[in-house]
């Protein structure tokens, strides 16, 4: 397989290994493997949520959630991430129907919404740090920055992955390996939206109400 990939018809070198379908054409093994990765990632977030739950009232005389959380901003951020999940869902039927242009259009839209989400989160973080509510202020804020920051890092990595796939779509079109990669990224992206449901409920809304 590798020999074949390195020597395509016109003799130009190809810098990736053509993927050998060990299970005869299905995406099953990769999809199941990626699903198990997502489940292990969920366990990382579970431990961060548990840590946040334990120290979420340890303010050390510092600000409480009610003092620092800007719920309209969080609502806007939540809407952006949810919208990006919906636009990714719009890309998938176009991918199934082999429409490269439409797939790229919805992917670009998804990426822009995701980038806006990360931008607003960075603004929120810098605003909190400028107010003296940085991660070193109290155990509550340490846990907050760790949990929300880990989610934000995941979204950022998803964005990098999305840019890579957009470039590869231009190079390879909608080949079988490309479809498999897009299916994995869509699972990753929807998964991050699910984690964010936990974040906006447990961290922001619950923090402000209680």
């Amino acid at each position, binding site marked *: 397989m590798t020999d074949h990939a390195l020597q395509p018809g016109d003799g130009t070198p190809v810098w990736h290994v053509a993927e050998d379908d060990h299970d005869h054409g299905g*995406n*099953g093994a990769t999809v199941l493997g990626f699903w198990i990765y997502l489940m292990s990632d969920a*366990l990382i977030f579970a431990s961060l949520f548990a840590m946040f739950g334990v120290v979420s009232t340890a303010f050390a005389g510092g600000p409480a959630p009610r003092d620092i959380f800007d719920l309209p901003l969080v609502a806007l951020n939540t809407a952006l991430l*949810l919208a990006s999940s919906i636009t990714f869902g719009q890309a998938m039927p176009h991918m199934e129907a082999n429409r490269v242009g439409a797939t790229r259009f919805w992917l670009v839209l998804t990426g822009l919404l995701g980038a806006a989400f990360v931008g607003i989160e960075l603004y929120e973080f810098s605003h909190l740090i400028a107010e003296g509510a940085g991660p070193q202020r109290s155990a509550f804020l340490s846990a907050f920055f760790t949990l929300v920051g880990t989610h934000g890092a995941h979204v950022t990595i998803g964005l990098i992955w999305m840019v890579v796939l957009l470039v590869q779509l231009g190079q390879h079109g909608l080949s079988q390996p490309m479809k498999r990669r897009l299916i994995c990224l869509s699972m990753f992206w929807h998964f991050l939206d699910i984690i964010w449901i936990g974040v906006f*409920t447990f961290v922001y809304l619950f923090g402000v109400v209680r």
Partner: protein
Amino acid sequence: MSSSSNEGAAAHPAHAAHSSGHSRGYRVGTILAIVLTALPFWLVMSDVLHDAQTTIALIFAMALAQIVVHVVCFLHLDTRSEGGWTLLAFLFTTVIVVLTIGGSIWVMYHLNTNMMPMPGGTAGPMQ
């Protein structure tokens, strides 16, 4: 995976589900997700209930409902995909997540309330 291993990708259960009946489930999921996101924010930001306990119970119930909606409508988890292994992995993960979060909070809460009072510290938990 070998049971459904024709060369055509559509033969795969997860894949077949991807192309057929999906768009309707996706639309239903989208509407439910928007409602289940807007409602808790509205409940908290306008404080319509004037009752923190009920509001908290409602926002957590809606978060759980929305997680189920996302997993079923967007991640297409069902009993058939990958021969049931995705569902099994998901259920196993759910058990561990509940044990980790619920167990940690439970144990640490009781640790706080049953500890000897710290010198000079009469304040609430984990100050």
